[in-house]
């Protein structure tokens, strides 16, 4: 057993130190929560013990003695993310008996807690059910439907949008200082929230430069976003020809969700699974073959595709086939705007994605972890969003009466917060306004801000009375 003293007043019990459990433990500890983890596998414990400052108990998730040792009666949240659906569900019921107020369970089966299920969430005592594969499928569908492969999220009840896009050498924003950009495009309602450069995420001030290859996070209203997309060379066009490699939970679900509105081809290696899928997916053309083979891809009509998605169980197959597909498409059609989306389990491939040439790499454990954090945070903040590739959160908050931020103009805030927290826009008198140094926030203003996960609590404190 390993013991490390917790340091916060909000207590979270995590069952399972797999991919999602470890990712959550890391992020929640960095946000100041007191995290206790129960895990049976000593190898996973040894690995995690060097990485996270959490209390880790070795034991079975179903052992009541272990729960008692974890001081279960003091817990505010249970997050059950073992690799066993039944254990996760049963844990929620046990947690309810112990009086844990909020329970979150990871479940792979889509048959639990849907409209037609025999048991509902109340029966199972669960407040949030997380389906990582479903989240990944929904994310892919969103990316396919929304833009040319750049990430866009909505915030402020859809009135503001945040776009992540990579800056090319020829972009008019490249090698420009932010002050210069805001002067030149002063009539556009937008704000650069963050710059991801290599492994670093920078929360910029007016003197920062945007460099070629930077990935920038831009917040804008709908009208400005369209103009900014033109400016940064992002073409918005509807994708209507999609090829998916791998008919597992994610691939099949993406085909199911897209099939009605988009032409979808799915390549599955396993003969039996391909036959099953061809019956189940009425609107999808299911092909049997080894999709990592260039000839198979060409025969399947890869050259005509707008989006190529790799969703097999194997990271390397997904990465290599995405790169192969990109090469094959551009050799046939050099002007193609086709994008690739690769599912990867190893976080290392997210770090390597830009240098090895992937357009978009998605990691389902990060998607699941973010959804859980959003749920935990929802009681405290209006909303929290997190974008792949940026070590930061975009947060919507409301200014409380007497809060520190309402007492002084933004430029007079504690200087140590510069580069750590950015107040982007605020909503007052029925409209959104860009926050400037002279802006003096008032109680009741709704604000969209950006900060690293580590600073989330400090940001919140500024808004509380």
């Amino acid at each position, binding site marked *: 057993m390993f013991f490390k003293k917790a340091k916060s007043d909000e207590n979270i019990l995590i069952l399972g130190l797999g991919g999602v459990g470890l990712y959550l433990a890391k992020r929640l500890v960095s946000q100041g929560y007191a995290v206790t983890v129960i895990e049976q596998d000593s190898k996973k414990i040894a690995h995690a013990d060097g990485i996270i400052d959490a209390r880790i108990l070795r034991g079975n998730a179903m052992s009541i003695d272990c729960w008692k040792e974890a001081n279960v009666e003091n817990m505010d949240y249970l997050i059950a993310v073992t690799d066993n659906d039944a254990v996760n569900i049963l844990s929620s019921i046990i947690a309810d008996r112990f009086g844990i107020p909020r329970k979150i369970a990871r479940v792979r089966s889509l048959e639990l807690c849907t409209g037609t299920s025999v048991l509902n969430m109340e029966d199972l005592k669960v407040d949030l059910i997380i389906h990582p594969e479903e989240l990944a499928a929904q994310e892919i569908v969103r990316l396919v439907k929304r833009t040319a492969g750049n990430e866009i999220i909505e915030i402020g009840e859809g009135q503001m949008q945040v776009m992540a896009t990579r800056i090319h050498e020829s972009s008019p924003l490249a090698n420009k200082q932010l002050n210069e950009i805001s002067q030149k495009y002063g009539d556009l309602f937008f704000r650069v929230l963050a710059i991801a*450069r*290599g*492994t*670093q995420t920078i929360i910029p001030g007016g003197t920062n430069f945007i*460099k070629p*290859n930077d990935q920038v996070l831009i917040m804008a209203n709908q009208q400005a976003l369209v103009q900014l997309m033109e400016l940064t060379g992002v073409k918005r066009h509807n994708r209507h020809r999609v090829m998916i490699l791998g008919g597992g939970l994610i691939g099949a679900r993406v085909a199911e969700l897209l099939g009605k509105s988009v032409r979808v081809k799915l390549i599955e290696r396993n003969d039996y699974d391909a036959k099953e899928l061809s019956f189940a997916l009425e609107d999808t053309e299911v092909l049997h073959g080894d999709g990592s083979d260039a000839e198979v891809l060409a025969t399947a009509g890869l050259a005509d595709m707008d989006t190529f998605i790799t969703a097999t169980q194997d*990271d*390397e*197959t997904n*990465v*290599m086939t995405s790169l192969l597909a990109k090469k094959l498409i551009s050799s046939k059609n050099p002007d193609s705007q086709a994008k690739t989306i690769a599912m990867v389990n*190893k976080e*290392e*491939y997210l*770090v*390597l994605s*830009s*240098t*090895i*040439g992937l357009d978009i790499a998605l990691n389902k454990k990060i998607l699941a972890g973010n959804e859980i954090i959003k749920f935990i945070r929802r009681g405290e903040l209006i909303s929290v969003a997190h974008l792949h590739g940026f070590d930061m959160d975009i947060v919507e908050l409301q200014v409380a009466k007497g809060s520190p931020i309402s007492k002084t103009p933004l430029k007079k805030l504690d200087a140590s917060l510069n580069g750590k927290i950015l107040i982007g826009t605020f909503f007052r008198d029925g409209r959104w306004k860009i926050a400037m140094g002279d802006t003096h926030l008032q109680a009741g203003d709704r604000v969209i801000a950006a900060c690293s996960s580590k600073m989330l609590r400090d940001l919140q404190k500024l808004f509380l009375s």
Partner: protein
Amino acid sequence: MKLSEYLDESGIVLDMTGGSKSEILSKLVEILTKTASISDSAEILKTLEDREKLKTTGIGSGIAIPHCKSAEVDRVHVVIGISKSGIDFESLDRQPANFFFLLVAPENAGSEHLKASAKIVRLVRDDQVREDLLTMASPKDVYDYIKSKE
């Protein structure tokens, strides 16, 4: 395969020097020739330089992973160059690089080179590991340290 299995002590250099990306690549290939039997090192150097023109392999935080496939090698080789002061490698974060991991894989390596790159990233993305590596006194220390982390 573990990262240490691609490594050899003779392929680790602690006092990397060089004023440009080209010089660093050249130095790394020179180190490679000590650990692998290479008949045409110029060909490997050219492939590496061509690869860098497509996209820099300096991924930031002081890390660079130049890589290529070549018929000159019959297995994956990794050589390491460390520079305490850091050298400009046109990295994504525009900061000097301290850790150069040259990775050369055979043409038919399949996904092995990807897995090896991922192992390198897993090792050096830890701030403490990078700090520790900068304090190593000998190639043997680096080799033993990497082995201890696996």
